[in-house]
C-alpha cells in the first residue's frame, strides 16, 4: 500500500485518539493564547467601562452546571472587570441552579482582589461594592419588579442581610440606577430581559450566550437592543483577553485555557480534512 493509500485509510480510531489528545493535553497544560476581541465583545467591555459611579452593573446568572464550561468564565471576567474599575455590581439568578455558580464566581473573584488589597478602599466588600440578591421564583417577577424597586423583589440578600440596609442599595433603587444588565444564559432568558425589562424600563442589555444560541441574538445586536455580547467559549476568552490587556488583571482565564483545547481540536479536524483530500487527489491522479 502506498503512502497515499494509507492517507485515505487511516483507521477512525486513530483520528479519535488524536482528537482526545489534542483536547485533553491543553486542559492539563494550557498554552498561551491571545484571542482578538470581536466588536460585540469590545462593545460590552466599553459599556461596562463607561458605567458612571452612581450606577450599577447587574449580572444575571441564568445558566446551570450543564453549560458551565462555556459560560462560567464569562461571569469571572465580568466580575474582575467591574471590581478592578470599582463599579458597583448587583447579582441575581433566574435559575435556582445558578445560585451555587454565582456564589462560586463571587467568592473566587473577591478573594483574588482582597488577597492583594492593602487598604480598606482597595478591598471588595459585600454590601458596599457588590450585592448578591439571590434568586426569586418565576422569572417575570424579578425581571419586571426590579423596574420599580429592587429591594422589594429581594427583601433579603443571598446571605440573609436586609437588602435596603446595605450601603450600595441606598443609591441603587431600580433599573434607572442600572447602567447595564448582562444576562449570561444557556437558554432564552436574555429574550425575556429584552422583551420586558428593556421595553418597559429602557434598561440596556448585554448578553453572554452559548455558541449555539448566539446566532439567535445577532438580529438584536444589529437593532441596537443588545449592547454587547459574548458568544460561547470564544466570547469568554476574548473578554478575558480585554481584562488582561486593558486592566492587567491576571487571574485564571478558564475560557482562554479551554480555547487552547478548542483551537487544537479545530486545527486537528481541519488537518484531517486536508489529509483526506491529499490522499484522495493523489489516488485519483494515479488512477488516471
Amino acid at each position, binding site marked *: 500500500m502506498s503512502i497515499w493509500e494509507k492517507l485515505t485509510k487511516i483507521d477512525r480510531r486513530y483520528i479519535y485518539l488524536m482528537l482526545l489528545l489534542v483536547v485533553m493535553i491543553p486542559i492539563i497544560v494550557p498554552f498561551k493564547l491571545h484571542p482578538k476581541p470581536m466588536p460585540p465583545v469590545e462593545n460590552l467591555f466599553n459599556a461596562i467601562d463607561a458605567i458612571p459611579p452612581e450606577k450599577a452593573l447587574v449580572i444575571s446568572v441564568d445558566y446551570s452546571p450543564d453549560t458551565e464550561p462555556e459560560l462560567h468564565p464569562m461571569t469571572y471576567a465580568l466580575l474582575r472587570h467591574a471590581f478592578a474599575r470599582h463599579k458597583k455590581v448587583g447579582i441575581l439568578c433566574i435559575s435556582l441552579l445558578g445560585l451555587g455558580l454565582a456564589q462560586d464566581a463571587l467568592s473566587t473573584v473577591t478573594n483574588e482582589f482582597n488577597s492583594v488589597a492593602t487598604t480598606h478602599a482597595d478591598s471588595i466588600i459585600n454590601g458596599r461594592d457588590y450585592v448578591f440578591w439571590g434568586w426569586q421564583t418565576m422569572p417575570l417577577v424579578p425581571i419586571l419588579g426590579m423596574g420599580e424597586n429592587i429591594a422589594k423583589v429581594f427583601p433579603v440578600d443571598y446571605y440573609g442581610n436586609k437588602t435596603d440596609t446595605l450601603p450600595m442599595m441606598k443609591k441603587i433603587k431600580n433599573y434607572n440606577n442600572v447602567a447595564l444588565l448582562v444576562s449570561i444564559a444557556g437558554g432564552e432568558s436574555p429574550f425575556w430581559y429584552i422583551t420586558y425589562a428593556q421595553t418597559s424600563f429602557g434598561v440596556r442589555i448585554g448578553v453572554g450566550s452559548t455558541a449555539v444560541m448566539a446566532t439567535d441574538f445577532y438580529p438584536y445586536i444589529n437593532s441596537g437592543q443588545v449592547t454587547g455580547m459574548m458568544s460561547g*467559549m470564544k466570547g469568554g476568552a476574548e473578554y478575558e483577553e480585554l481584562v488582561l490587556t486593558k486592566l492587567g488583571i491576571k487571574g485564571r482565564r478558564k475560557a482562554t485555557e*479551554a480555547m487552547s483545547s478548542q483551537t487544537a481540536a479545530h486545527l486537528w479536524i481541519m488537518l484531517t480534512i486536508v489529509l483526506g483530500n491529499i490522499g484522495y487527489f493523489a489516488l485519483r491522479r494515479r488512477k488516471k
Partner: protein
Amino acid sequence: MTHNPWIWVSAILTLGIFSFLYKENPFYRVCEHLFIGISNGYSITFVWHRVLMPTLINPVAHGEKLWLILIAIIGAFYFMYFIPQISWLVRIPIAIVLGYGAGASIPRGIDAAIVQQLRATIITRSTFLSVYNGIWSIVILFGVIATISYFFFSRERKGILKPLSYTGIVFIMIGFGASFGYTVMARVSLLIGRLTFLLRDWLGIIH
C-alpha cells in the same frame, strides 16, 4: 481522587460510553441497557408525580374537574392496544392528539415560516439606509428564490429552472458547510466539559 461514590459511578458510566469509540463491547452494552432502563424509570416517575398527580388525580380527588375522568378513560384506550379485538380504540386518543397538533400547526406555521419570513426577505427603500445591508439583502433575496426553485418537483429542470436550481444548491451547500463548521465549536465544548469532569471532579489532576 474523589471519595464520593456517586462521582465514581458517573465517571465509570462516562468511560463506558466512551469505550464505544474503540469498539462495541460488554462494558458499553451494560451502560447502554442501564441508560435505557433508567431513562424509562425516570419517565415513569416523572409522569406519575409531575403529570398525573397534579393534573388528574389531585383535582379529581378533591372533587374538582370531574370531567377529567372521561379524559382518563380515553387515555386508558391505549391499554386496549394489547387486546386485538378492540385494539382499534387506540385510534381515538391518537386522533385527538394528532388532530389538535395538525390544526394548531396550520396558522402558526404559516405565520412563523411564511408571513414573518416574507416580511424579513422583501426589500424596501429603508433596507438601503445602510448600503451594505441593502446589498446583502439582495443576495439573500436571490438566494431564497434560487433555493426555492431547487425544490420544484412538478417540472423538469429545464430552461430558467436549470441555472436557478443550480444556484440554489450552491447556496444550500454553503449554508450546510457553515452549519457544520459552526457546530464543531459547540460539540468540542461539550467534550471539554466531559473531560474536565473526569480530570477534575474524579481524578483531581487539575483544579
